[in-house]
Protein backbone atom coordinates (compact mmCIF):
# COMPACT_ATOMS: atom_id res chain seq x y z
CA UNK A 1 0.00 0.00 0.00
CA UNK A 2 1.56 3.24 -1.07
CA UNK A 3 1.20 6.23 1.23
CA UNK A 4 1.69 9.87 0.61
CA UNK A 5 5.16 9.57 2.04
CA UNK A 6 6.10 7.46 -0.98
CA UNK A 7 4.68 9.83 -3.53
CA UNK A 8 6.94 12.78 -4.05
CA UNK A 9 5.36 16.16 -4.52
CA UNK A 10 2.05 15.32 -2.90
CA UNK A 11 1.00 16.24 0.58
CA UNK A 12 4.26 17.89 1.33
CA UNK A 13 3.45 21.02 -0.62
CA UNK A 14 -0.10 21.92 -1.47
CA UNK A 15 -0.42 21.80 -5.22
CA UNK A 16 -2.13 24.98 -6.35
CA UNK A 17 -5.54 24.18 -7.69
CA UNK A 18 -5.39 20.65 -6.37
CA UNK A 19 -8.68 21.17 -4.65
CA UNK A 20 -10.26 22.40 -7.85
CA UNK A 21 -10.63 26.14 -7.15
CA UNK A 22 -8.85 28.56 -9.46
CA UNK A 23 -7.19 31.69 -8.18
CA UNK A 24 -8.88 35.00 -8.93
CA UNK A 25 -7.27 38.40 -9.28
CA UNK A 26 -8.91 41.33 -7.44
CA UNK A 27 -9.90 42.82 -10.77
CA UNK A 28 -11.73 39.67 -11.78
CA UNK A 29 -13.36 39.67 -8.37
CA UNK A 30 -14.50 43.25 -8.86
CA UNK A 31 -15.82 42.49 -12.33
CA UNK A 32 -17.85 39.55 -11.05
CA UNK A 33 -19.31 41.63 -8.25
CA UNK A 34 -20.25 44.35 -10.68
CA UNK A 35 -21.93 41.94 -13.03
CA UNK A 36 -23.98 40.54 -10.21
CA UNK A 37 -25.27 44.00 -9.30
CA UNK A 38 -28.37 44.07 -11.43
CA UNK A 39 -29.14 47.72 -10.85
CA UNK A 40 -25.71 48.72 -12.07
CA UNK A 41 -25.88 46.51 -15.13
CA UNK A 42 -29.31 47.77 -16.13
CA UNK A 43 -28.17 51.34 -15.55
CA UNK A 44 -25.15 50.82 -17.76
CA UNK A 45 -27.42 49.49 -20.47
CA UNK A 46 -29.81 52.41 -20.23
CA UNK A 47 -26.90 54.84 -20.22
CA UNK A 48 -25.60 53.22 -23.37
CA UNK A 49 -28.95 53.68 -25.07
CA UNK A 50 -29.19 57.31 -24.01
CA UNK A 51 -25.69 58.08 -25.22
CA UNK A 52 -26.44 56.51 -28.59
CA UNK A 53 -29.72 58.40 -28.88
CA UNK A 54 -28.10 61.66 -27.98
CA UNK A 55 -25.19 61.22 -30.34
CA UNK A 56 -27.02 59.89 -33.38
CA UNK A 57 -30.62 60.81 -32.77
CA UNK A 58 -30.53 64.38 -34.01
CA UNK A 59 -28.88 63.21 -37.22
CA UNK A 60 -31.61 60.70 -37.89
CA UNK A 61 -34.62 62.79 -37.05
CA UNK A 62 -36.17 64.85 -39.77
CA UNK A 63 -36.53 68.01 -37.72
CA UNK A 64 -33.86 70.57 -37.00
CA UNK A 65 -33.73 71.76 -33.37
CA UNK A 66 -34.20 75.36 -34.49
CA UNK A 67 -36.82 74.72 -37.11
CA UNK A 68 -40.10 76.34 -36.20
CA UNK A 69 -43.00 74.39 -37.61
CA UNK A 70 -45.76 77.00 -37.75
CA UNK A 71 -48.27 74.41 -38.72
CA UNK A 72 -47.83 72.60 -35.45
CA UNK A 73 -47.14 75.04 -32.63
CA UNK A 74 -47.71 73.82 -29.06
CA UNK A 75 -48.75 70.47 -30.47
CA UNK A 76 -49.09 67.47 -28.18
CA UNK A 77 -47.13 64.31 -28.95
CA UNK A 78 -48.54 62.40 -31.90
CA UNK A 79 -47.26 60.06 -34.53
CA UNK A 80 -49.38 61.63 -37.21
CA UNK A 81 -47.86 65.07 -37.07
CA UNK A 82 -44.36 63.65 -37.20
CA UNK A 83 -43.55 65.28 -33.90
CA UNK A 84 -43.41 62.18 -31.75
CA UNK A 85 -42.98 64.05 -28.52
CA UNK A 86 -44.79 67.23 -29.39
CA UNK A 87 -43.63 70.76 -30.02
CA UNK A 88 -43.15 73.86 -27.92
CA UNK A 89 -44.90 77.19 -28.15
CA UNK A 90 -43.08 78.20 -31.33
CA UNK A 91 -43.30 74.84 -33.00
CA UNK A 92 -39.85 73.41 -32.32
CA UNK A 93 -39.77 69.62 -32.05
CA UNK A 94 -39.30 68.57 -28.45
CA UNK A 95 -37.67 65.25 -29.15
CA UNK A 96 -34.87 66.62 -31.25
CA UNK A 97 -34.37 69.57 -28.92
CA UNK A 98 -34.13 67.26 -25.96
CA UNK A 99 -31.59 65.06 -27.69
CA UNK A 100 -29.53 68.06 -28.76
CA UNK A 101 -29.78 69.42 -25.27
CA UNK A 102 -28.54 66.07 -24.09
CA UNK A 103 -25.38 66.51 -26.09
CA UNK A 104 -24.62 69.72 -24.25
CA UNK A 105 -25.52 68.34 -20.84
CA UNK A 106 -23.43 65.23 -21.31
CA UNK A 107 -20.58 67.23 -22.78
CA UNK A 108 -20.57 69.58 -19.83
CA UNK A 109 -20.73 66.57 -17.57
CA UNK A 110 -17.74 64.95 -19.17
CA UNK A 111 -15.52 67.98 -19.55
CA UNK A 112 -16.26 69.51 -16.15
CA UNK A 113 -15.59 66.11 -14.62
CA UNK A 114 -12.25 65.99 -16.38
CA UNK A 115 -11.42 69.43 -14.99
CA UNK A 116 -12.34 68.37 -11.48
CA UNK A 117 -10.40 65.17 -12.08
CA UNK A 118 -7.25 67.06 -12.95
CA UNK A 119 -7.52 69.36 -9.97
CA UNK A 120 -8.66 66.67 -7.57
CA UNK A 121 -6.09 64.06 -8.55
CA UNK A 122 -3.30 66.59 -8.53
CA UNK A 123 -4.26 68.04 -5.18
CA UNK A 124 -4.91 64.69 -3.56
CA UNK A 125 -1.73 63.10 -4.88
CA UNK A 126 0.39 65.97 -3.61
CA UNK A 127 -1.25 65.90 -0.19
CA UNK A 128 -0.93 62.14 0.07
CA UNK A 129 2.61 62.02 -1.22
CA UNK A 130 4.03 64.66 1.07
CA UNK A 131 2.00 63.68 4.08
CA UNK A 132 2.59 65.27 7.45
CA UNK A 133 1.78 68.93 7.97
CA UNK A 134 1.30 69.68 4.27
CA UNK A 135 -1.27 66.93 4.08
CA UNK A 136 -3.13 68.09 7.18
CA UNK A 137 -3.26 71.69 6.02
CA UNK A 138 -4.40 70.76 2.55
CA UNK A 139 -7.07 68.42 3.83
CA UNK A 140 -8.26 70.95 6.37
CA UNK A 141 -8.71 73.39 3.48
CA UNK A 142 -10.78 70.75 1.72
CA UNK A 143 -12.93 70.27 4.83
CA UNK A 144 -13.60 73.98 4.95
CA UNK A 145 -14.40 74.37 1.27
CA UNK A 146 -16.58 71.27 1.43
CA UNK A 147 -18.86 73.02 3.84
CA UNK A 148 -19.42 76.13 1.76
CA UNK A 149 -22.40 76.41 -0.59
CA UNK A 150 -21.02 75.53 -3.99
CA UNK A 151 -23.96 77.04 -5.79
CA UNK A 152 -23.10 80.48 -4.56
CA UNK A 153 -19.59 80.27 -5.80
CA UNK A 154 -20.53 78.90 -9.16
CA UNK A 155 -23.05 81.68 -9.59
CA UNK A 156 -20.41 84.15 -8.52
CA UNK A 157 -17.99 82.77 -11.06
CA UNK A 158 -20.59 82.79 -13.81
CA UNK A 159 -21.47 86.38 -13.10
CA UNK A 160 -17.87 87.41 -12.95
CA UNK A 161 -16.68 85.66 -16.06
CA UNK A 162 -19.75 85.58 -18.19
CA UNK A 163 -21.63 82.69 -19.71
CA UNK A 164 -18.99 81.28 -21.97
CA UNK A 165 -19.43 77.53 -22.22
CA UNK A 166 -15.76 76.89 -21.62
CA UNK A 167 -15.97 78.86 -18.45
CA UNK A 168 -18.95 76.83 -17.35
CA UNK A 169 -16.79 73.73 -17.62
CA UNK A 170 -14.04 75.33 -15.65
CA UNK A 171 -16.28 76.85 -13.01
CA UNK A 172 -18.17 73.68 -12.26
CA UNK A 173 -15.05 71.59 -12.30
CA UNK A 174 -13.28 74.02 -10.02
CA UNK A 175 -16.00 73.74 -7.48
CA UNK A 176 -16.46 69.99 -7.57
CA UNK A 177 -13.04 68.41 -7.11
CA UNK A 178 -13.20 67.88 -3.39
CA UNK A 179 -14.40 64.28 -3.13
CA UNK A 180 -11.92 63.20 -5.76
CA UNK A 181 -9.03 64.82 -3.94
CA UNK A 182 -9.94 63.12 -0.68
CA UNK A 183 -10.09 59.71 -2.28
CA UNK A 184 -6.89 60.13 -4.26
CA UNK A 185 -5.10 61.38 -1.18
CA UNK A 186 -6.26 58.34 0.77
CA UNK A 187 -5.09 56.00 -1.95
CA UNK A 188 -1.75 57.75 -2.30
CA UNK A 189 -1.12 57.58 1.43
CA UNK A 190 -1.93 53.92 1.42
CA UNK A 191 0.21 53.23 -1.60
CA UNK A 192 3.14 55.24 -0.33
CA UNK A 193 3.39 53.01 2.68
CA UNK A 194 2.38 49.83 0.94
CA UNK A 195 4.68 46.96 1.47
CA UNK A 196 4.41 45.76 -2.05
CA UNK A 197 5.89 49.01 -3.29
CA UNK A 198 8.80 48.53 -0.96
CA UNK A 199 9.10 44.98 -2.15
CA UNK A 200 9.10 46.10 -5.77
CA UNK A 201 11.85 48.58 -5.05
CA UNK A 202 13.78 45.91 -3.20
CA UNK A 203 13.56 43.77 -6.33
CA UNK A 204 15.09 46.56 -8.32
CA UNK A 205 12.06 47.96 -10.11
CA UNK A 206 12.82 51.53 -11.19
CA UNK A 207 10.60 54.51 -10.29
CA UNK A 208 8.86 54.58 -13.68
CA UNK A 209 8.17 50.90 -13.46
CA UNK A 210 6.66 51.39 -10.05
CA UNK A 211 4.47 54.24 -11.21
CA UNK A 212 3.38 52.40 -14.31
CA UNK A 213 2.75 48.98 -12.88
CA UNK A 214 1.80 49.63 -9.29
CA UNK A 215 0.61 53.16 -8.66
CA UNK A 216 -1.41 53.94 -11.76
CA UNK A 217 -3.50 50.75 -11.79
CA UNK A 218 -4.32 51.23 -8.13
CA UNK A 219 -5.35 54.83 -8.60
CA UNK A 220 -7.21 54.09 -11.81
CA UNK A 221 -9.88 52.07 -10.07
CA UNK A 222 -10.95 54.74 -7.62
CA UNK A 223 -10.62 57.48 -10.18
CA UNK A 224 -13.02 55.71 -12.51
CA UNK A 225 -15.50 55.18 -9.69
CA UNK A 226 -15.48 58.79 -8.62
CA UNK A 227 -15.60 60.07 -12.15
CA UNK A 228 -18.79 58.11 -12.63
CA UNK A 229 -20.18 59.65 -9.47
CA UNK A 230 -19.01 63.16 -10.30
CA UNK A 231 -20.60 63.31 -13.74
CA UNK A 232 -24.18 63.38 -12.43
CA UNK A 233 -23.28 65.98 -9.80
CA UNK A 234 -21.81 68.16 -12.48
CA UNK A 235 -24.75 67.73 -14.83
CA UNK A 236 -26.99 68.64 -11.93
CA UNK A 237 -25.08 71.85 -11.24
CA UNK A 238 -25.18 72.82 -14.89
CA UNK A 239 -28.89 72.23 -15.01
CA UNK A 240 -29.36 74.36 -11.91
CA UNK A 241 -27.42 77.16 -13.58
CA UNK A 242 -29.40 76.90 -16.77
CA UNK A 243 -32.60 76.89 -14.82
CA UNK A 244 -31.63 80.15 -13.16
CA UNK A 245 -30.72 81.65 -16.49
CA UNK A 246 -26.99 81.56 -15.89
CA UNK A 247 -26.04 78.54 -17.94
CA UNK A 248 -25.49 77.96 -21.62
CA UNK A 249 -26.81 80.67 -23.86
CA UNK A 250 -29.26 80.45 -26.73
CA UNK A 251 -29.26 78.97 -29.30
CA UNK A 252 -27.47 76.20 -27.38
CA UNK A 253 -29.74 74.47 -24.99
CA UNK A 254 -29.24 71.98 -22.23
CA UNK A 255 -31.66 69.83 -20.31
CA UNK A 256 -31.74 72.35 -17.47
CA UNK A 257 -32.71 75.18 -19.77
CA UNK A 258 -35.33 73.02 -21.45
CA UNK A 259 -36.85 72.15 -18.09
CA UNK A 260 -36.84 75.79 -17.16
CA UNK A 261 -38.69 76.72 -20.33
CA UNK A 262 -41.01 73.79 -19.96
CA UNK A 263 -41.85 74.68 -16.38
CA UNK A 264 -43.10 78.04 -17.49
CA UNK A 265 -45.57 76.51 -19.90
CA UNK A 266 -46.34 73.43 -17.92
CA UNK A 267 -50.03 74.07 -17.57
CA UNK A 268 -50.66 74.38 -21.28
CA UNK A 269 -47.97 72.12 -22.73
CA UNK A 270 -46.85 69.73 -19.99
CA UNK A 271 -44.83 67.61 -22.38
CA UNK A 272 -42.35 70.45 -22.83
CA UNK A 273 -41.51 69.98 -19.16
CA UNK A 274 -41.89 66.23 -18.86
CA UNK A 275 -39.72 65.06 -21.76
CA UNK A 276 -36.49 66.83 -20.80
CA UNK A 277 -37.20 66.28 -17.09
CA UNK A 278 -37.50 62.55 -17.59
CA UNK A 279 -34.36 62.38 -19.72
CA UNK A 280 -32.40 64.34 -17.15
CA UNK A 281 -33.66 62.32 -14.22
CA UNK A 282 -33.14 58.94 -15.87
CA UNK A 283 -29.60 59.88 -16.85
CA UNK A 284 -28.69 61.04 -13.36
CA UNK A 285 -30.36 58.03 -11.81
CA UNK A 286 -28.41 55.62 -14.00
CA UNK A 287 -25.09 57.33 -13.46
CA UNK A 288 -25.62 57.22 -9.72
CA UNK A 289 -26.50 53.52 -9.70
CA UNK A 290 -23.58 52.70 -11.97
CA UNK A 291 -21.18 54.70 -9.82
CA UNK A 292 -22.49 53.04 -6.69
CA UNK A 293 -22.12 49.64 -8.29
CA UNK A 294 -18.57 50.38 -9.36
CA UNK A 295 -17.68 51.56 -5.89
CA UNK A 296 -19.16 48.48 -4.25
CA UNK A 297 -17.45 46.23 -6.76
CA UNK A 298 -14.04 47.72 -6.21
CA UNK A 299 -14.22 47.96 -2.45
CA UNK A 300 -17.18 46.18 -0.90
CA UNK A 301 -16.41 47.58 2.51
CA UNK A 302 -16.52 51.16 1.39
CA UNK A 303 -20.25 51.71 1.19
CA UNK A 304 -21.98 55.00 1.65
Amino acid at each position, binding site marked *: *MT*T*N*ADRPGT*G*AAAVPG*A*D*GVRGRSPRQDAWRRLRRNRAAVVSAGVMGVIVLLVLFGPMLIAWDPDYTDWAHTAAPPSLASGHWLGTDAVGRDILVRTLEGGRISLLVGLVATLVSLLIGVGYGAVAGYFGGLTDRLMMRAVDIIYALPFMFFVILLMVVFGRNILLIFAAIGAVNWLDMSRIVRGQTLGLKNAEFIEAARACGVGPWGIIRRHIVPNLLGVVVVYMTLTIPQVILIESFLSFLGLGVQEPMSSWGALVSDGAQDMETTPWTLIVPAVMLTVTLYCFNYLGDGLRDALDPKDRA
Partner: protein
Amino acid sequence: MPLLQLKDLNVRFDTPEGEVRAVTNMSFTIDAGESLAIVGESGSGKTQTMLAVMGLLADNGRASGEALFKGRDLLRMSAPELNRHRGSEIAMIFQDSMTSLNPYLRVEKQMTEVLAQHRGLGRAEARAHAVEMLAAVRIPDPERRIRQYPHEYSGGMRQRVMVAMALLCRPDLLIADEPTTALDVTVQAQISQLMRELRAASNTAIVLITHDLGVVAGLCERVMVLYAGEVVECGGVDDIYDRPRHPYTRGLLESVPRLDQPEETSLRAIPGDPPNLLALPGGCRFRQRCPHASDACTETPPLRAGGGGHRWRCFLEDGA
Protein backbone atom coordinates in the same frame (compact mmCIF):
# COMPACT_ATOMS: atom_id res chain seq x y z
CA MET B 1 -28.46 15.41 32.46
CA PRO B 2 -25.49 16.96 30.66
CA LEU B 3 -25.34 20.72 30.78
CA LEU B 4 -24.78 21.11 27.04
CA GLN B 5 -25.25 18.39 24.48
CA LEU B 6 -24.60 18.83 20.77
CA LYS B 7 -26.03 16.27 18.38
CA ASP B 8 -24.97 16.31 14.75
CA LEU B 9 -24.48 20.03 14.61
CA ASN B 10 -23.89 21.30 11.10
CA VAL B 11 -23.05 24.90 10.28
CA ARG B 12 -23.22 26.08 6.70
CA PHE B 13 -22.71 29.48 5.09
CA ASP B 14 -24.27 30.64 1.84
CA THR B 15 -21.69 32.54 -0.11
CA PRO B 16 -21.66 33.75 -3.71
CA GLU B 17 -19.01 31.11 -4.40
CA GLY B 18 -21.14 28.31 -3.01
CA GLU B 19 -21.99 26.68 0.28
CA VAL B 20 -19.23 26.62 2.89
CA ARG B 21 -19.49 23.75 5.35
CA ALA B 22 -17.83 25.13 8.42
CA VAL B 23 -18.91 22.42 10.87
CA THR B 24 -19.90 18.85 9.99
CA ASN B 25 -21.86 16.48 12.24
CA MET B 26 -20.38 17.72 15.49
CA SER B 27 -21.51 15.91 18.61
CA PHE B 28 -20.23 16.23 22.17
CA THR B 29 -21.44 16.79 25.71
CA ILE B 30 -20.37 18.99 28.56
CA ASP B 31 -21.42 18.26 32.11
CA ALA B 32 -21.85 20.79 34.88
CA GLY B 33 -18.54 22.06 36.19
CA GLU B 34 -16.48 20.45 33.42
CA SER B 35 -13.86 22.27 31.45
CA LEU B 36 -13.37 21.48 27.79
CA ALA B 37 -10.85 22.89 25.37
CA ILE B 38 -11.72 23.01 21.68
CA VAL B 39 -8.49 23.13 19.75
CA GLY B 40 -7.82 23.67 16.07
CA GLU B 41 -6.39 25.94 13.39
CA SER B 42 -8.20 28.94 11.94
CA GLY B 43 -11.06 27.68 9.86
CA SER B 44 -11.39 24.46 11.83
CA GLY B 45 -14.89 25.45 12.87
CA LYS B 46 -14.19 25.79 16.57
CA THR B 47 -15.57 29.31 16.88
CA GLN B 48 -18.51 28.76 14.55
CA THR B 49 -19.66 25.77 16.60
CA MET B 50 -20.04 27.85 19.72
CA LEU B 51 -21.43 30.86 17.84
CA ALA B 52 -24.13 28.57 16.47
CA VAL B 53 -24.94 27.42 20.01
CA MET B 54 -25.28 31.04 21.12
CA GLY B 55 -27.37 31.99 18.11
CA LEU B 56 -24.77 34.47 16.95
CA LEU B 57 -24.01 33.19 13.47
CA ALA B 58 -23.63 35.69 10.66
CA ASP B 59 -26.67 36.44 8.52
CA ASN B 60 -25.72 33.96 5.82
CA GLY B 61 -25.12 31.13 8.28
CA ARG B 62 -27.46 28.24 9.02
CA ALA B 63 -27.21 25.72 11.81
CA SER B 64 -28.91 22.34 11.83
CA GLY B 65 -28.91 19.50 14.31
CA GLU B 66 -29.50 19.90 18.03
CA ALA B 67 -27.88 21.97 20.74
CA LEU B 68 -29.50 20.95 24.01
CA PHE B 69 -28.87 23.19 26.99
CA LYS B 70 -30.33 21.61 30.12
CA GLY B 71 -32.46 19.56 27.78
CA ARG B 72 -33.88 22.44 25.69
CA ASP B 73 -32.80 22.88 22.08
CA LEU B 74 -31.19 26.30 21.67
CA LEU B 75 -31.30 26.08 17.88
CA ARG B 76 -35.08 25.90 17.87
CA MET B 77 -35.62 28.84 20.19
CA SER B 78 -36.87 32.23 19.13
CA ALA B 79 -34.65 35.22 19.84
CA PRO B 80 -36.55 36.37 22.95
CA GLU B 81 -36.41 32.83 24.39
CA LEU B 82 -32.73 32.61 23.61
CA ASN B 83 -32.15 35.95 25.28
CA ARG B 84 -33.32 34.54 28.58
CA HIS B 85 -30.41 32.12 28.56
CA ARG B 86 -27.76 34.25 26.90
CA GLY B 87 -25.85 36.40 29.31
CA SER B 88 -27.42 34.77 32.36
CA GLU B 89 -26.95 30.99 32.13
CA ILE B 90 -24.59 30.84 29.17
CA ALA B 91 -22.05 33.58 28.67
CA MET B 92 -19.47 34.09 25.95
CA ILE B 93 -16.35 36.18 25.85
CA PHE B 94 -14.51 37.06 22.69
CA GLN B 95 -11.00 37.38 21.45
CA ASP B 96 -10.55 41.05 20.71
CA SER B 97 -11.65 43.05 23.72
CA MET B 98 -11.09 46.39 22.00
CA THR B 99 -13.70 45.74 19.36
CA SER B 100 -15.91 43.52 21.50
CA LEU B 101 -16.69 46.23 24.00
CA ASN B 102 -18.81 49.16 22.90
CA PRO B 103 -16.39 52.12 22.63
CA TYR B 104 -19.21 54.62 22.95
CA LEU B 105 -20.57 53.45 26.28
CA ARG B 106 -19.01 53.55 29.70
CA VAL B 107 -18.02 50.24 31.24
CA GLU B 108 -20.56 50.81 34.00
CA LYS B 109 -23.41 50.92 31.53
CA GLN B 110 -22.23 47.85 29.68
CA MET B 111 -22.06 45.88 32.91
CA THR B 112 -25.15 47.11 34.73
CA GLU B 113 -27.42 46.52 31.76
CA VAL B 114 -26.80 42.78 32.07
CA LEU B 115 -27.93 42.84 35.68
CA ALA B 116 -30.88 45.06 34.88
CA GLN B 117 -31.95 42.76 32.08
CA HIS B 118 -31.59 39.40 33.77
CA ARG B 119 -31.93 40.14 37.48
CA GLY B 120 -34.10 43.24 37.38
CA LEU B 121 -31.68 45.14 39.60
CA GLY B 122 -31.95 48.88 40.02
CA ARG B 123 -29.10 51.20 39.14
CA ALA B 124 -27.45 51.45 42.51
CA GLU B 125 -27.62 47.76 43.29
CA ALA B 126 -26.42 46.79 39.83
CA ARG B 127 -23.55 49.20 40.10
CA ALA B 128 -22.51 47.74 43.43
CA HIS B 129 -22.47 44.22 42.01
CA ALA B 130 -20.50 45.34 38.99
CA VAL B 131 -17.87 47.06 41.10
CA GLU B 132 -17.61 43.94 43.23
CA MET B 133 -17.06 41.82 40.15
CA LEU B 134 -14.41 44.19 38.80
CA ALA B 135 -12.61 43.87 42.09
CA ALA B 136 -12.89 40.09 41.86
CA VAL B 137 -11.07 40.15 38.54
CA ARG B 138 -8.50 42.41 40.13
CA ILE B 139 -9.15 45.68 38.33
CA PRO B 140 -7.50 48.34 40.49
CA ASP B 141 -9.64 51.18 41.81
CA PRO B 142 -12.88 49.75 40.42
CA GLU B 143 -15.13 52.49 41.85
CA ARG B 144 -13.46 55.06 39.64
CA ARG B 145 -12.59 52.93 36.67
CA ILE B 146 -16.08 51.68 36.14
CA ARG B 147 -17.03 55.16 34.95
CA GLN B 148 -14.41 55.04 32.19
CA TYR B 149 -14.64 54.06 28.56
CA PRO B 150 -13.10 50.87 27.20
CA HIS B 151 -10.29 52.63 25.37
CA GLU B 152 -9.06 53.96 28.70
CA TYR B 153 -8.14 50.46 29.82
CA SER B 154 -5.14 48.39 28.77
CA GLY B 155 -5.65 45.24 26.71
CA GLY B 156 -5.26 42.87 29.61
CA MET B 157 -7.62 44.88 31.81
CA ARG B 158 -10.21 45.02 29.07
CA GLN B 159 -10.16 41.27 28.77
CA ARG B 160 -10.71 41.04 32.51
CA VAL B 161 -13.65 43.40 32.17
CA MET B 162 -15.10 41.03 29.59
CA VAL B 163 -14.65 38.12 31.96
CA ALA B 164 -16.25 40.11 34.78
CA MET B 165 -19.16 41.10 32.55
CA ALA B 166 -19.72 37.50 31.55
CA LEU B 167 -19.75 36.25 35.14
CA LEU B 168 -22.13 38.84 36.54
CA CYS B 169 -25.11 36.49 36.53
CA ARG B 170 -23.09 33.48 37.60
CA PRO B 171 -23.61 31.50 34.40
CA ASP B 172 -23.57 27.72 34.35
CA LEU B 173 -21.48 27.73 31.19
CA LEU B 174 -18.78 30.15 30.11
CA ILE B 175 -17.55 30.03 26.53
CA ALA B 176 -14.23 31.73 26.04
CA ASP B 177 -13.21 32.31 22.43
CA GLU B 178 -9.45 32.70 22.32
CA PRO B 179 -9.44 34.96 25.38
CA THR B 180 -5.66 35.23 25.55
CA THR B 181 -4.63 35.18 21.92
CA ALA B 182 -4.48 38.93 21.47
CA LEU B 183 -2.49 39.46 24.66
CA ASP B 184 1.17 39.13 25.43
CA VAL B 185 2.51 36.17 27.34
CA THR B 186 2.58 37.54 30.86
CA VAL B 187 -0.95 38.84 30.55
CA GLN B 188 -2.00 35.52 29.09
CA ALA B 189 -0.74 33.84 32.22
CA GLN B 190 -2.69 36.26 34.41
CA ILE B 191 -5.93 35.64 32.57
CA SER B 192 -5.45 31.89 32.70
CA GLN B 193 -4.80 32.12 36.41
CA LEU B 194 -7.91 34.23 36.83
CA MET B 195 -10.06 31.73 35.06
CA ARG B 196 -8.66 28.90 37.14
CA GLU B 197 -9.53 30.71 40.33
CA LEU B 198 -13.00 31.56 39.17
CA ARG B 199 -13.65 27.98 38.22
CA ALA B 200 -12.56 26.80 41.58
CA ALA B 201 -14.80 29.33 43.26
CA SER B 202 -18.02 28.80 41.35
CA ASN B 203 -18.16 25.46 39.52
CA THR B 204 -18.84 27.13 36.18
CA ALA B 205 -18.35 24.86 33.19
CA ILE B 206 -15.87 26.32 30.74
CA VAL B 207 -15.46 25.81 27.03
CA LEU B 208 -12.12 27.25 25.98
CA ILE B 209 -11.65 27.77 22.28
CA THR B 210 -8.02 28.15 21.34
CA HIS B 211 -5.28 27.22 18.96
CA ASP B 212 -2.66 27.54 21.67
CA LEU B 213 -1.94 24.21 23.31
CA GLY B 214 0.09 25.85 26.04
CA VAL B 215 -2.94 27.59 27.52
CA VAL B 216 -5.02 24.42 27.53
CA ALA B 217 -2.82 22.39 29.80
CA GLY B 218 -3.28 24.47 32.90
CA LEU B 219 -7.00 25.01 32.64
CA CYS B 220 -8.91 22.17 31.05
CA GLU B 221 -9.72 18.57 31.88
CA ARG B 222 -10.80 17.48 28.43
CA VAL B 223 -9.64 18.41 24.98
CA MET B 224 -11.38 18.15 21.64
CA VAL B 225 -9.32 18.55 18.47
CA LEU B 226 -11.05 19.87 15.37
CA TYR B 227 -9.93 19.81 11.78
CA ALA B 228 -11.88 21.24 8.82
CA GLY B 229 -15.11 21.27 10.79
CA GLU B 230 -14.90 17.76 12.21
CA VAL B 231 -13.77 16.29 15.52
CA VAL B 232 -10.66 14.20 14.86
CA GLU B 233 -9.74 13.37 18.44
CA CYS B 234 -11.02 13.97 21.94
CA GLY B 235 -10.12 12.82 25.39
CA GLY B 236 -8.71 13.76 28.75
CA VAL B 237 -5.94 16.31 28.69
CA ASP B 238 -3.32 13.77 29.78
CA ASP B 239 -4.34 11.31 27.07
CA ILE B 240 -4.14 13.97 24.40
CA TYR B 241 -0.81 15.35 25.48
CA ASP B 242 0.92 12.07 26.32
CA ARG B 243 -0.71 9.64 23.92
CA PRO B 244 -2.00 11.56 20.89
CA ARG B 245 -3.38 9.09 18.37
CA HIS B 246 -4.52 11.15 15.40
CA PRO B 247 -1.75 12.28 13.04
CA TYR B 248 -3.06 15.83 13.16
CA THR B 249 -2.93 15.97 16.94
CA ARG B 250 0.55 14.58 16.77
CA GLY B 251 1.51 17.24 14.27
CA LEU B 252 0.09 19.98 16.48
CA LEU B 253 1.95 18.83 19.53
CA GLU B 254 5.16 18.37 17.63
CA SER B 255 5.02 21.85 16.23
CA VAL B 256 5.19 23.43 19.67
CA PRO B 257 8.81 24.43 20.37
CA ARG B 258 10.20 22.83 23.51
CA LEU B 259 12.88 23.87 25.93
CA ASP B 260 14.18 20.33 26.44
CA GLN B 261 15.26 19.82 22.84
CA PRO B 262 18.68 20.79 21.52
CA GLU B 263 18.78 24.30 20.07
CA GLU B 264 19.53 23.26 16.52
CA THR B 265 16.31 21.29 16.22
CA SER B 266 14.36 22.86 13.38
CA LEU B 267 10.74 23.76 13.90
CA ARG B 268 8.35 21.16 12.67
CA ALA B 269 5.27 22.29 10.82
CA ILE B 270 2.43 20.36 9.33
CA PRO B 271 2.95 20.72 5.59
CA GLY B 272 0.25 22.04 3.30
CA ASP B 273 -2.84 24.15 3.92
CA PRO B 274 -6.26 23.42 5.37
CA PRO B 275 -8.76 22.21 2.79
CA ASN B 276 -11.11 24.56 1.00
CA LEU B 277 -14.41 24.41 2.86
CA LEU B 278 -16.25 25.01 -0.41
CA ALA B 279 -14.97 21.80 -1.89
CA LEU B 280 -14.19 19.33 0.83
CA PRO B 281 -12.45 16.11 -0.11
CA GLY B 282 -14.37 12.95 0.63
CA GLY B 283 -13.26 10.57 3.34
CA CYS B 284 -10.70 11.77 5.84
CA ARG B 285 -10.24 15.50 5.41
CA PHE B 286 -6.69 15.42 6.68
CA ARG B 287 -5.38 12.92 4.18
CA GLN B 288 -3.74 15.42 1.83
CA ARG B 289 -1.42 16.57 4.59
CA CYS B 290 -1.05 13.35 6.49
CA PRO B 291 2.33 11.63 6.35
CA HIS B 292 0.62 8.27 6.83
CA ALA B 293 -2.25 8.63 4.36
CA SER B 294 -3.13 5.67 2.17
CA ASP B 295 -5.72 4.82 -0.46
CA ALA B 296 -8.07 3.63 2.28
CA CYS B 297 -8.34 7.18 3.55
CA THR B 298 -10.73 8.17 0.79
CA GLU B 299 -13.44 6.44 2.84
CA THR B 300 -14.81 7.79 6.11
CA PRO B 301 -12.38 6.77 8.83
CA PRO B 302 -13.74 4.61 11.67
CA LEU B 303 -14.10 5.78 15.25
CA ARG B 304 -11.52 4.21 17.54
CA ALA B 305 -11.53 4.23 21.29
CA GLY B 306 -8.81 4.07 23.88
CA GLY B 307 -9.35 4.05 27.63
CA GLY B 308 -11.03 6.76 29.66
CA GLY B 309 -13.12 8.36 26.94
CA HIS B 310 -10.19 8.82 24.57
CA ARG B 311 -11.52 8.60 21.00
CA TRP B 312 -10.26 9.42 17.54
CA ARG B 313 -11.07 8.85 13.88
CA CYS B 314 -8.36 7.23 11.83
CA PHE B 315 -7.63 4.15 9.78
CA LEU B 316 -4.36 3.52 11.56
CA GLU B 317 -4.68 0.83 14.24
CA ASP B 318 -2.78 2.41 17.12
CA GLY B 319 -1.87 5.73 15.74
CA ALA B 320 1.35 5.93 13.77
